[in-house]
């Protein structure tokens, strides 16, 4: 037994002493305080963290880890979404059939499940994260701005989920989006059935009609169809995630700049 252990530890030492290992990890074994600092400073992923943190701030009891879980779910959704994009074509002709193929013909076909349940979970964890931040008063100065960034991220999460809801192109999808987007028709001034819209007139001609109102801008058509599917697909896979990623960077950066995880003064 001892021999086996020695062999392992020898192999481990040889590996961590090698030039390849040292080119990646530029610090020794993380057993000294110096290396605990270096591991945070020299790793692009870990450097989101401070080197040290107040004990109260990292307790699960305090943070519920909800922000972290939300970010982790975003990463899961990015990865599974990327894999789904290999198989899915956003056209009325193929979309539904591709969704069926995903579970019928793709090995280990639970990618869509991971993506859908992860998305639902992310909406819930984002709400709980906001709830925790409110209940600990963590939006108070100096963190007002970051609370605002968080609110925008919450809206983006809902929009991401909403645009993704259409993509399976089944009855559930188009009717949920129809019900949701019908609201845009009632936008004041900008929707055909919105208050004050009728006042926007040039002589006898209504400036806003069902071919150019807020709902049309959302759907790219007068009803949920081919154009909507493409529009939602592009927003879901490229537009919204890009904006969310940028704002998340701001969010995390400001957490650090505003003094780390909140705590009593």
């Amino acid at each position, binding site marked *: 037994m001892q021999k086996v252990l020695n062999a392992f530890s020898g192999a481990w030492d040889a590996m961590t002493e090698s030039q390849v290992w040292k080119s990646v990890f530029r610090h020794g074994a993380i057993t000294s305080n110096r290396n605990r600092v270096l591991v945070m400073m020299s790793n692009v992923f870990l450097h989101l963290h401070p080197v040290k943190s107040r*004990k109260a701030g990292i307790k699960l009891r305090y943070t519920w880890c909800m922000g972290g879980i939300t970010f982790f779910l975003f990463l899961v959704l990015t990865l599974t979404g990327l894999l789904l994009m290999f198989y899915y074509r956003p056209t009325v002709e193929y979309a539904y059939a591709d969704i069926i193929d995903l579970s019928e013909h793709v090995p280990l076909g639970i990618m869509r499940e991971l993506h859908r349940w992860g998305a639902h979970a992310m909406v*819930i964890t984002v709400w709980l994260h906001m709830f925790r931040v409110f209940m600990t*008063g963590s939006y108070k100065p100096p963190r007002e701005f970051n609370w605002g960034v968080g609110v925008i991220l919450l809206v983006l999460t809902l929009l991401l989920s909403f645009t993704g809801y259409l993509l399976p192109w089944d009855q559930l999808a188009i009717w949920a989006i129809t019900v949701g987007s019908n609201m845009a028709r009632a936008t004041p001034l900008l929707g055909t059935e919105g208050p004050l819209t009728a006042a926007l007139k040039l002589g006898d001609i209504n400036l806003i009609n069902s071919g150019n109102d807020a709902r049309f801008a959302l759907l790219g058509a007068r009803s949920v169809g081919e154009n909507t599917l493409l529009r939602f697909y592009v927003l879901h896979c490229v537009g919204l995630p890009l904006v969310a990623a940028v704002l998340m960077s701001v969010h995390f950066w400001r957490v650090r700049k505003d003094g780390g995880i909140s705590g009593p003064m």
Partner: protein
Amino acid sequence: MEFIKNIINWSSGPTVLFTVATIAFALSIKYPQVWSKKFAYILFGGMAVFYCFSMFDPNFFLIVAKPDNVPITFMLFLVAFFTWFALHQGVENDKRVAAGEEPLEKQEQDKVWVWPDLVYVELLCMVLLTIGLVVWSILLPAPLEQPANPADSPNPSKAPWYFLGLQEMLVYFDPWLAGVVFPTLIVVGLLAIPFIDTNPKGNGYFTFKERRAEIAIFLYGFIVLWILLVVSGTFLRGPNWNFFGPYEYWDPHRVEPLLNVNISDIFWVRVLGRPLPSNPIVREFLGIGMILFYTGFLPVALAWPKEKFPKFLQWMSLNNYYEKMGPARYYLGVMLFLLMISLPIKMYMRWIWDLKYIVAFPEIFFNI
């Protein structure tokens, strides 16, 4: 058994459910000591027992076990737990402060190394979450219905679940309010919170006593006006958006009489016994007056000092907030608050007087 089910069906109707939730909420704010461990056992025990027994009911099972409704059950338990957890910690900290100690968080001010103390927790969290998500995905296939057919609209047609609070609002308000103005106001209101709330206390630790008003307003909006409406919109609204108790069959042929009338009908036709005036401004003057009173006069009047109120209304004076916050913060905060509680106000006007619109200009889609 049937008897109990009938009681639960009846008491989950929008009127009873909402009233009970509001009263229970008010009591829990008045007596925060209820957020004890004992209460948690009763609450979660009760919820678990309710769910377990109800699963044997075919109608209940049919709705709750729909794949896209499963996350709502998760949410219900998570939100209940974390609401209890946050308030429990707040109350515990208040006790400590009252006894001359510091909040728990303040006692743990010493710094620890992020590697390993935080990084390992994060790793563990990721591993557990991944396992949970994979197990969930294997056990429960994602829903897929018939291919999209624009000619065949299902009944009920529901928005994605997180918007069902807004869809529920459509019962009481027109789409321009429920679907456009109120969602915008929710976002604006959330953005405005740090700037309205000038209370320097309770920053960075759980507390209840030091932030009673803020917590009460936020919790009412989040728990009662958002989560409760999402849950009832998911589980209790069936065909034609009619209400169905948790053990009722979603009968698409059930007819609910629509008896709702406008304020103008009540005033001109019922009270004065005359036909509606043809001039729309005259026709709607009462409703317009009420809206102007609510959004114009009321915020100003609430800022008056106590002495200017009649004796029995003195509790309404928000003068101390006006003094503390200054005019800009006060008016923004009070307007947002009044618009938030305009939802329950309109709900009760509907339930008590069958009121449809306070102001109705259907000609220009301007109905409130």
